[in-house]
Structures are given as structure tokens and as C-alpha cells.
């Protein structure tokens, strides 16, 4: 999603019409920013943005906080690949439960927003099984981790239906 928001800025600078994904992402992003206290991105996305042209990347970096990986994030990501997610997608999904906001000392997210319809569909269709697998895993973790939850996964198009 962040890539498409960045690219929406690029298209505006060129006075060129944006793509569907760029419009969906930019409008969803603008809407979410009005209803939530914090927008989060992964460490990887934060590092990528830091290497991009500041004129496009700086406003996104200013709006968002990068999440750190809490312990067991990768363990959960590996479990998620058993449901057919790529390792890249599994990491993003795992941030939804094990992403750590160091500043507020909170872990996990309410929702992950993506432009990837197939990712959201797969997650939602297999949610009961994923939920069982998740509960099996956290039951065996130290006490502090047992309150962790699964996030919702929403497409940018779905977010726009809330506007």
C-alpha cells in the first residue's frame, strides 16, 4: 500500500493520471489517517523509504511509525507459509500480531491494509484454520504473549467502502 501512496505522489508531480491501485491506496491512507492515532509500517518499508527521494518519502515517514519485530514473529511467519502465503507476505501478516511499537510498548495491530486482493482473500477464507493454528502457537508461549491477537486484513477497496 505504501508503495502505491508513494507512486501517487510521483504521478501528481508529473500531472499524470494515477492507476487504480494508487488512487485506492492514497484515498484509503488519507481516510485511515483521520480515524486512527497511529499508522505503522514495517522496518523494511521504513528502510526503503529512507533510501528514496525525500521529497516523496519524507511525508510518509513523518506520518508513520516503524514496527520492530517482537520475539516469535518469524516463528509465526513460518506457520503462515503453511497456508500458502509467500515468505514476504507471511512476514507482513506476522507483523500484525508480533509487530512491536517501541514508543508505546504495544504489540500487534488492529488491521493490515493492503492493495493485494489475493492476499486478503486467502487470509479471510482460511481465517478459521489460521486462527486455530495461531491459538495453538500462543498457548505454548510465555504468559506475556498470550494476549496477542490476529489482525484483520482489509483491502484498500474495502476501506473505501467505510468512507
Amino acid at each position: 500500500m505504501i508503495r502505491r501512496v508513494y507512486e501517487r505522489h510521483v504521478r501528481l508531480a508529473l500531472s499524470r493520471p494515477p492507476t487504480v491501485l494508487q488512487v485506492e491506496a492514497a484515498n484509503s491512507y488519507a481516510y485511515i489517517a483521520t480515524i486512527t492515532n497511529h499508522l505503522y509500517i514495517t522496518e523494511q518499508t521504513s528502510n526503503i523509504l529512507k533510501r528514496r527521494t525525500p521529497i516523496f518519502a519524507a511525508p510518509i515517514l513523518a506520518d508513520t511509525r516503524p514496527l520492530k519485530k517482537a520475539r516469535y514473529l518469524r516463528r509465526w511467519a513460518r506457520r503462515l507459509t503453511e497456508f500458502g502465503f509467500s515468505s514476504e507476505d507471511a512476514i507482513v501478516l506476522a507483523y500484525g500480531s508480533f509487530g512491536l511499537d517501541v514508543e508505546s510498548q504495544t504489540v500487534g495491530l488492529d488491521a493490515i491494509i493492503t492493495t493485494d486482493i489475493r492476499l486478503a482473500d486467502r487470509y479471510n477464507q482460511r481465517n478459521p484454520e489460521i486462527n486455530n493454528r495461531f491459538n495453538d502457537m500462543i498457548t505454548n508461549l510465555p504468559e506475556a504473549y498470550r494476549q496477542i491477537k490476529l489482525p484483520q486484513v482489509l483491502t484498500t477497496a474495502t476501506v473505501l467502502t467505510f468512507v
Partner: protein
Amino acid sequence: MEKLTVDADGKITIPPEVIQKRGLHPGDELSLVESAEGLLVYQGGVDDKTSAWWNSLDPEQRLLAETEAHRYESLSDGERDSIWSEEADSIEAEAESDEIDFPTE
């Protein structure tokens, strides 16, 4: 998001409340953007956040943004994909050393 239905003549009707909300008038032009992801009926407006960013730039910064935008848009899809997948995280157990313990009271 509104669902629009194409009629037998290939026309779509925009609901009156959307017409009113967007300030559209008869004769106004809308762009139909075709892409791999679908079709977008585009009024040419910009969301608040993107608009605020653009309006915060002075003429010199806008020129710089245009130059940088040309550079980015001249990249191939593959090159852009590579940029956005740099330093992809490994999910292997050997990479877990950067994970942080969940804070307890």
C-alpha cells in the same frame, strides 16, 4: 465506494448523491483509466493528504519533485519491484536474533 452497472448501450449512471457530493455538472469531463487492475472513473481530484503535501511544496521543490518523478517513472516495472523488495526479511530461525522480547510490566 459505489457499484455501477453498465447498461446495454455501454453507459453507466452515477448516483445523484455522488454527482452532488463531487460537484459534477452536465458536460464535465471524467477520465476512464484502464489498467491491469481494472477501470477507474477519475475526476482528477486529489485526496486531502496528497493535496496537502503538494500544496506544501514551493515552486523549486515542485520542480525537483517533477525531475525525481521522471526518474522513477522511467524505471522498468522490474526495477521498481526490486526497490520495494530490498532487504526482504528472512523467515528462517537463524535470522531471529533481531527479535525483541515483548515488554512485560
